[in-house]
């Protein structure tokens, strides 16, 4: 490292923010370079001088002034948001919300089911007579297919009667 490189890095070197290898290179250079050591001392001195700009105390009673200022200035949307922020996740409100949601969902499904039933009944009244009879006896058609497998009904001549009806 030459002197220019070292002097460019001295401000960050003083803050101990250089990678370890760069720090070591600078330390090695400084041991043999008087000019760079003087430069380092000047950086240190000017940095220490900043201490002379000391802190100032704010006006006393700042916390009381803060609360007084706040109460006069909080806009209503913020007050509403603060109010909700302190209450929205209480267990009671969560439970009430869940119950309300359940009621809404059940009510919706019930209403939808009722509407579907009404619509189906209206459709049935509009069917031609033959189709309506088939729909009404759909249950028997299904049972007849099952009845074929029951021997007792064959003995009772039920099957023969049904075949006659069908033909």
């Amino acid at each position: 490292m030459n002197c220019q490189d070292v002097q460019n890095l001295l401000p960050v070197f003083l803050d101990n923010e250089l990678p370890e290898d760069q720090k070591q290179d600078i330390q090695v250079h400084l041991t043999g370079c008087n000019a760079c050591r003087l430069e380092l001392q000047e950086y240190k001195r000017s940095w220490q001088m900043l201490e002379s700009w000391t802190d100032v105390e704010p006006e006393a009673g700042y916390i009381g002034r803060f609360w007084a200022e706040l109460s006069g200035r909080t806009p209503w949307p913020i007050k509403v948001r603060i109010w909700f922020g302190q209450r929205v996740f209480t267990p009671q409100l969560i439970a009430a919300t869940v119950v309300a949601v359940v009621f809404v969902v059940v009510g919706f499904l019930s209403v939808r089911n009722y509407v579907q039933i009404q619509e189906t009944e209206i459709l049935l009244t509009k069917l031609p007579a033959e189709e309506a009879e088939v729909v009404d006896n759909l249950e028997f058609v299904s049972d007849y297919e099952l009845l074929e497998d029951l021997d007792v009904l064959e003995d009772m001549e039920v099957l023969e009667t049904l075949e006659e009806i069908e033909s």
Partner: protein
Amino acid sequence: MSIPSDNPYLSDPDVLLMLEYQKGDKPSFEALMRKYYVRVFNFILRIVQRRDAAEDLTQEVFIKVYHAGSAYRPQAKFQTWVFTIAKNLALNELRRAGKTPVSLDAHFEYDGDEIPQQFEDKNSLSADEKLVQKETARMVKDAVQSLPESQRIAIILRRYEDFSYAEIAESLSCSVEAVKSLLSRAKETLKKRLAEYVKI
């Protein structure tokens, strides 16, 4: 809304105080205020150089912190967050005021009575020593005020608030490398401006 347990900022005790305040614990907010008020006030004062403005703006910082309570999510150290708010308000004030230069020789006014810019050194300096200290402080303020805005804020955060480079980068919304560059140039300027006082 819960904070994930792996949030790295939960190790910051001031973040925990803010989360306690979020649950409705106002004493936690006051504890934060007591801890940070003087620091924030002096930080803003060093930027805007007017006491009345610094008082008002410091109150504004904590009003913003107060209102942010319900939606607060720790995304930085609390200190970094608060000083970023303070920095933004201070810079807005400078722009609003048209960057009107303030004489650093003027005393601050408070309720019409002049007060010294700094409190007297409690170590009982002699009159000559006090004059030297006052003159040094004036030179330092002049030198820092001569820096460009970003360099000035970086110097103030580093020197007077002991922020790390990473925290300064977060506050200024820049990279750590950019902070290194800002501080290097600022320190070089300060060394030159204070050369008369630092010659070994």
